[in-house]
C-alpha cells in the first residue's frame, strides 16, 4: 500500500488578529501549524500502514517554511516527505493548486504507484474543500469525500469500502483503488510518534521539488495565471450601525434585569411574543 497524504501548513486561525486601523491580517507571531483536519487523514493512512504495511508519503505545496509542517508529519510516522515549492506557484487558487499537486503525484507515481490519496475535509484558513476533489478529477481517481470510516481495504483486489457522511445519513460505498479520500474530523485520534519515529524523522530529509521537478512544464498553468478566480478585495466585516441596547436597572439585580429585558424585547417585537406563546405556551 502506498498512501500519499496531502497536508497544508496554515496559520493558527484562533490566533489571527486583524489590525484595527489598516484592516489587514497581522501575521507576525501567529504560529504556523499543520491544518488540523489533515491530521485525521494522516492518522488514517498510518493506521492502514500498520495493518497492511507499505509506505506513507506526505506532500505539501507551499513556501519553504512549510517544511516544518512536513517534518512534524515525519515525526508522527510518515516515511517520506515532499514539498513542492516554487515562486511560480504564488497566488494559486484551488484550481491551480490541485493542478500542481496532481502533477506532483503523477511524478511520485513514476517511482512508486499510489493506491490512496488522503486529504483533510478542508483547511481552516481557506475552508473551501475544493482541492481534494480537484486532485481526484485531474488524476481520474475515484473520489470519496467526508469519509467517516474505512471499513475494508483489499490491496490485492484493488477494492476499498468506506463509510461516507452524506446529507441525512451515512453511505457505505465500495470503489476501486486508486482513489482519493477526504477524511472527516473526529474519525480517529492522532498518535504520538515514538522515539524511533523521532530519530528517523530527524534523519529523513524533506525533498523540495520546484515546478520543473514536479513535472509542470507550463508556468502558466499554476500561480496567478493558472487561477480562474481573482481576489479583488479583502476587508474586515462592517460593524453594525447600532450597538446593543444595554438593559440596566437601579440595582442591576438579575431578576429585575431579566424582567426588564423581556418587557423591552416583547414591546419592540410583539410578533416574537405571539409566536413564542403560540409554540411553547
Amino acid at each position: 500500500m502506498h498512501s500519499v497524504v496531502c497536508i497544508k501548513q496554515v496559520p493558527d486561525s484562533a490566533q489571527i488578529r486583524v489590525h484595527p486601523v489598516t484592516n489587514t491580517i497581522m501575521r507576525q507571531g501567529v504560529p504556523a501549524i499543520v491544518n488540523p483536519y489533515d491530521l485525521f487523514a494522516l492518522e488514517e493512512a498510518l493506521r492502514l500502514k500498520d495493518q497492511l504495511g507499505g509506505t506513507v508519503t506526505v506532500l505539501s505545496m507551499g513556501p519553504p517554511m512549510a517544511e516544518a509542517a512536513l517534518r512534524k508529519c515525519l515525526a508522527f510516522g510518515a516515511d517520506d516527505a515532499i514539498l513542492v515549492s516554487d515562486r511560480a506557484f504564488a497566488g494559486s487558487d484551488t484550481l491551480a493548486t490541485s493542478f500542481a499537486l496532481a502533477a506532483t503525484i503523477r511524478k511520485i507515481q513514476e517511482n512508486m504507484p499510489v493506491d490512496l490519496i488522503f486529504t483533510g475535509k478542508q483547511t481552516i484558513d481557506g475552508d473551501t474543500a475544493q482541492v481534494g476533489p480537484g486532485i481526484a478529477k485531474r488524476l481520474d481517481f475515484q473520489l470519496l469525500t467526508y469519509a467517516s470510516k474505512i471499513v475494508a481495504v483489499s490491496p490485492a483486489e484493488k477494492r476499498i469500502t468506506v463509510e461516507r457522511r452524506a446529507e441525512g445519513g451515512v453511505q457505505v460505498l465500495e470503489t476501486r483503488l486508486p482513489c482519493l479520500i477526504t477524511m472527516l474530523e473526529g474519525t480517529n485520534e492522532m498518535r504520538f510518534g515514538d522515539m524511533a519515529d523521532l530519530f528517523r524523522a530527524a534523519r529523513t530529509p524533506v525533498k523540495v521539488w520546484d515546478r520543473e521537478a514536479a513535472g509542470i512544464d507550463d508556468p502558466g498553468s499554476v500561480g496567478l495565471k493558472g487561477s480562474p478566480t481573482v481576489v479583488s478585495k479583502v476587508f474586515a466585516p462592517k460593524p453594525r450601525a447600532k450597538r446593543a441596547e444595554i438593559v440596566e436597572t437601579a440595582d442591576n439585580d438579575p431578576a429585575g434585569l431579566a424582567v426588564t429585558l423581556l418587557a423591552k424585547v416583547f414591546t419592540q417585537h410583539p410578533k416574537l411574543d405571539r409566536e413564542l406563546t403560540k409554540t411553547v405556551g
Partner: protein
Amino acid sequence: MNDTVKKPAKKKVELDPRFAGYKGVWVFIENERGQVHPVSWELLGEGRKLADALGVELAGVVMGPPGERLAAICQEAFAYGADLCYLASHPALADYRNEPYTQGLTALVNAYQPEILMLGASTLGRDLAGSVATTLGTGLVADCTELVIEADTRNLASTRPTFGGSLLCTIMTQRHRPQMATVRPRVMAMPEADPARNGRIVEHPLAFVEDAIVTKVLEFIADDTRDKPNLPFADIIVAGGRGLKRPENFQLVWELAKVLGAEVGASRPVVQAGWAELDRQVGQSGKTVRPKLYIAAGISGAIQHRVGMDGADVIIAINNDPNAPIFDFAHFGIVGNAMQILPALTHAFSAHLAQARKAG
C-alpha cells in the same frame, strides 16, 4: 497555496471569447431520496435577484432517478422563482455519487452554457461543485455570504469569509464561465413560494450506463434524527460560551432552552472543550443559523461566531465584559454574570409564558 492572499486585481480582465455565449443563472436543486434541501430554495431567492440584475432567466437544475417526483420538484422550483428547469433523470442518479452527478451536471453546463451556477455548500454540494469546477476548468467560490453583479462588467462578485472568518474577501471569475459559487444553508433568506408561478421544463437525456460507474452504494444508513439537533432551522436558540466558566454551568443554557422550546447552541471553544456536541457549534467552522431569537450567554462574539448567527432576527447577549464584541451587533444586552442572569431569564420567561397561557 491560498486563494485569499493574492494582491488585489487592478486592471480589467476581458472574458475569454469562448464563453461569450454563456447566459443565464442556474441553481442546482439538491434532492436526495426525493427530499429537496431547503438551501436550494434559498439559492433560488438569491438567484432571482442576480438573474433580474442581468436581465436573464433563472433556471433550476433537477437531477435524480426517473419518476414523477422530479417533475414535482420542478414545479416547486417555479414557485420559488425559477423560470425554467433542466431535468436530467437516470437510474444511476438514485443515490448521490460523485461520478454520475459530476458527469451529468458537466454535460448540462456544456449543452446549455449558463453564466452563473450556484450550489448549496452542503456535503453533497461541496463534493459536486469542486468536481464540476475542476472538470470545466472554471472558478468556484465556496461559502459565499454575498453575491452581487458588477454593473459595468456583468461579472459576479462573490464575497466570502476567510481566515476562519476574521476577514471577508470578494472574489471574481473574470475570464471563465460559468462563474460558480456555493452558499451555506441559512445564509440567504428563504423566499416566499408563489404556487401560481409556472415555468417550462427542458428534459436532457444522460448517456452513461451503470456498469461504467465504478463506485457502488452498498447501503444507506439514515440518521436517527429523533435526538439530533437541527440548529440551522431552529426558531429559537440559546447558546453558551466560555464565559460560563465550568462545564456544569452549561446546564443553565439547557434549562432556559427547555422553557423556550429552543435548541442549544455553543461557541467553538466550549465545543472543543467537550461541553457540547459538534452538531451544536455555531459559527464559521460550525453551523449557520437564522433563528427568530438568539440568546448568547458568555459568548464574546468573535467574528468566527458572528458569521454563523448574524442573520438572527433578534439577538440577546449576556456578557460580563461591557466591551465584548458581541454587544456591537446584538440587539439587546445585559452586562452581568451569565451564571446569575440565565436562571433569572429562565424564571422570567416561564412566568411570561404562564401568564400568556392563562390569558389565552
